């Protein structure tokens, strides 16, 4: 890890991925301890009408509780939050969420850009973001904004994912701090604890 990296700087971990990154997310959650220091806030693309099942599927592997927040719910450490189907999930202040049903962004609702940009605005350099594999360009603008505000950015190595449009789009748009394969991402996130 580079000398300037100070893990205490980061107050929230945001993760973006498409439907295909579900197995990767599940593996990440399997490895994070139940008293993880950070809140884990995730936006995964999902089917519009599928309201049930997603949270339950992630709960099987996760050691932390998994929730789909209601509007204005508190953001707590050692919790996993996933954006509800058909809502954008935003970080309103460092302490609580907001939801919105505004139009699709990058053909998606929830959209990773919306989550990441709101995180960058609310938490500035206290955000650590991970962008996983996916088949569209959602998340690239969000990564850029987090980078600009001084947060830390990690992209899944496009050479190691089956759908690499999403990580590649981010790399084309903005400098990032790390490009790692899934196993290294997991190690990195465990080290943050």
């Amino acid at each position, binding site marked *: 890890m580079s000398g300037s990296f100070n893990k205490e700087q980061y107050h929230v971990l945001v993760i973006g991925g498409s439907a295909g990154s579900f197995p990767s997310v599940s593996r990440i959650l399997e490895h994070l301890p139940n008293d993880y220091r950070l809140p884990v806030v995730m936006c995964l693309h999902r089917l519009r009408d599928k309201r049930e099942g997603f949270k339950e599927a992630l709960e099987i592997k996760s050691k932390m509780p998994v929730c*789909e*927040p*209601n*509007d*204005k*719910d508190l953001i707590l450490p050692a919790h996993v939050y996933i954006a*509800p189907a058909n*809502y*954008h999930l*935003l*970080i*309103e*202040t460092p302490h609580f969420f*907001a*939801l*919105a*049903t*505004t*139009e*699709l*962004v*990058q053909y998606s609702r929830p959209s990773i*850009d*919306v989550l990441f*940009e*709101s995180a960058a*605005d*609310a938490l500035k350099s206290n955000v650590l973001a991970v962008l996983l594999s996916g088949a569209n360009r959602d998340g690239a*603008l969000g990564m*850029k*904004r987090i980078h600009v505000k001084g947060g830390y950015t990690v992209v899944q190595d496009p050479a190691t994912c089956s759908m690499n449009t999403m990580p590649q789009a981010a790399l084309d748009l903005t400098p990032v701090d790390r490009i790692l394969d899934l196993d290294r991402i997991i190690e990195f996130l465990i080290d943050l604890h």
Partner: protein
Amino acid sequence: MFNLPSEYDIEIELDDLNKLTDAVLTKYGYDFGNYAMSSFKRRIIMVLKKHGIKTVELLIQKILHDSQFFEQFILDITVNTTELFRDPSFFRYLREKIIPVLNTRPEFNIWHAACSSGEEVISMSILLHEEGLLSRAKVYATDINHAVLKRAAEARYPLRNLELFKQNYELTMPKGKLEDYYIVKDNEIYFDPALVSHVKFKHHDLAVDHHFFKFDFIFCRNVLIYFNQDLQNRVFELLHNSLFLGGFLALGAKESMVWCRISDKFEVVNEIEKVYKKIKL
């Protein structure tokens, strides 16, 4: 749908937003000062891009000098998306559990707060009609936005929405066919005027206006998420004042009363469908 920002390259400071909401309040009496900041900011950026306006300062000038532009501005920054029988399980729940309670009252009053283009109103009218209670309902439907209120009163929607409307309706344990309630003309769905003829459509701003009537049932769905907690608290008080004791309040699927100051004056009737009942004055 609007063009979305291709790049998030306009930087807006909190200060700019405050100047904007102050100007709007002073000139037009609308108070956006307590909207949830994260999504409000995105909306303003979208408006700037849509009209090719470079700074918030210029947007303020345009709003102050062009009241027609201001009407468009309101339409742009508010979120009007809605559906017939949005969240079908909610309407099914109303049909099975709440309408029987209303049925015990000789007449009852319903308020659709933030009704948008009125799909929610028509959904409820269809339910009441199918359960034989429509003639006993006194209904108000309100919104901040004149353009959507007009559309709601006309009960007229783009044909492309029909498939979704039908799918939703089918999930509410319907007693009829949706076809019985509308005709199609020139690529638009026209609902039977009898479904809205008893409804009073009125302009009402949840951020500044007061209670105007007492109700047995209030819908206030998918608008509170655009407000910050201060404004949510104001609205909950307004809704509380507008309900009879024992009256019901329905919120949107992901809205919650947990954090509100007066949550102890309500009882949770159904946590999943977000139906609450006023139990204290």
